């Protein structure tokens, strides 16, 4: 690839092709979701596999764990499962008389394991692949060029428009004095203020998109995204892809048996 600083010889595993990583991660997550409930040793093996991959790809453990926090609300929601799933009671909450069922507990822990492994695999993909390469990989894997280009634009302007939003929020905060013993403005009023901010942010974004379009036109844009990134699949890539395919096959076979 022109303009890329890394070359396949020096990188080894670290310079895996983005396509390889996308395919491997999807196969891995699929495998994780197909492991029968309660097969705890298998989950442990997969976790070990994942963490070794993280070490090879130089993704810190802290990043891996921290980013999985985002889905905590969903995880907490499944806490009710041990109580609501019918089955053999293994524990009864003192006082309330609610029973924890073995089946419910298994279901709960299984979902937790699947979630944990899947989200870490996703973090691994995102943290070890520059967005430009990730998008290129998706396009090569058959995701429509237009959609990939839109996502690329979105990612680029996330920071620009996010900064504009940040400025508006700071400006609002700077004017939000609160005098002791005076009533705060109502929730609806505050919601309305937020809505007005959203509205003017929209107008700015719309105007910006028009300016960007003009800038693209003046450099010859014709409506069809083009790119000249070239990466090649090397031996390592095939090893990883085939390896993750085998993993999935193994788990499917295990389910049959």
């Amino acid at each position, binding site marked *: 690839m022109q*303009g890329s600083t890394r070359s396949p010889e020096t990188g080894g595993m670290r310079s895996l092709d983005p396509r390889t990583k996308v395919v491997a991660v999807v196969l891995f997550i699929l495998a994780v979701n197909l492991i029968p409930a309660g097969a705890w040793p298998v989950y442990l093996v997969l976790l070990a596999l994942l963490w070794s991959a993280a070490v090879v790809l130089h993704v810190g453990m802290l990043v891996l764990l921290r980013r999985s926090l985002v889905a905590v609300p969903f995880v907490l929601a499944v806490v009710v499962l041990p109580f609501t799933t019918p089955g053999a009671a293994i524990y009864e909450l003192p006082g309330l008389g609610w029973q924890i069922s073995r089946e419910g507990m298994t279901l709960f822990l299984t979902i937790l394991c699947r979630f944990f492994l899947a989200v870490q695999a996703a973090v691994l993909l995102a943290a070890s692949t520059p967005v430009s390469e990730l998008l290129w990989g998706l396009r090569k894997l058959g995701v429509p060029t237009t959609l990939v280009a839109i996502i690329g634009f979105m990612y680029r302007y996330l920071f620009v428009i996010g900064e504009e939003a940040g400025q508006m929020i700071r400006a609002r905060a700077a004017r939000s004095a609160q005098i002791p013993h005076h009533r705060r403005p109502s929730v609806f009023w505050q919601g309305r203020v937020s809505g007005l901010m959203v509205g003017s942010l929209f107008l700015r974004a719309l105007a910006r998109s028009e300016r960007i379009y*003009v800038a693209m036109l003046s450099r*010859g844009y014709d409506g069809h995204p083009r790119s000249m990134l070239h990466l090649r699949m090397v031996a390592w890539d095939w090893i990883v892809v085939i390896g993750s395919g085998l993993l999935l096959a193994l788990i499917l076979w295990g389910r049959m048996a």
Partner: protein
Amino acid sequence: MSCLVEIKNLSFSYQDGRTALQELDLSICEGEKVGIVGSNGAGKSTLLLQLNGVLQGTGDVRIAGDQVCRQNLGRIRSLVGLVFQDPDDQLFSPTVFEDVAFGPLYMGLDESAVSLRVREALESVGMDGMEERVPNRMSLGEKKLVAIATVLAMRPRILALDEPTAALDARARRTILGVLKHLDETLVVATHDLSLVAEVLDRTIVMDRGEVVADGPTAEILRDEAFLAEHGLI
């Protein structure tokens, strides 16, 4: 005399009815360094956008003899490079390399030629080695330099810049001035920055309310303080 830019009787109004340019006549020759100055709303940016046909008014605009019209837009846009005021509007790709390569790619160059142009363009603004940088994490000054490179990579004959020094600190401004001084292309710079004009550009056009009110050697025009004040420039 055949000039690089020939504008005759150009008028332009925006959709909301605002008149931005009124019966403008202007010619700029190869190699000239021209400053367009005027207060906000004088029509400077609108004029720049006319140069490569992003906006089209009534009247006649010719670049290197070709009329700016729908059929010629591809050619015109490879002749006139526009650098916008907000570099974030111009740098829309995930990496510096892809941004600078954008114009050359759409010109239909093969990939080795594109890479060569990217390297040369980045070198000429002193940003070589920055190919893999991400625009989100660059300073405003760096973004402005790369924005100039995105246009230089197309090897235009005319470089039209809108407020190249706006909102820059002294050091970044100095860097931009240094780059502009060393460019061989014909320069058209719309700006409020009179000391930029004095230092880099030898001809100055003063605009007010869509009309050219003065056009001549920079030294002469900047000397007349009463005139500058009358048109809201000092």
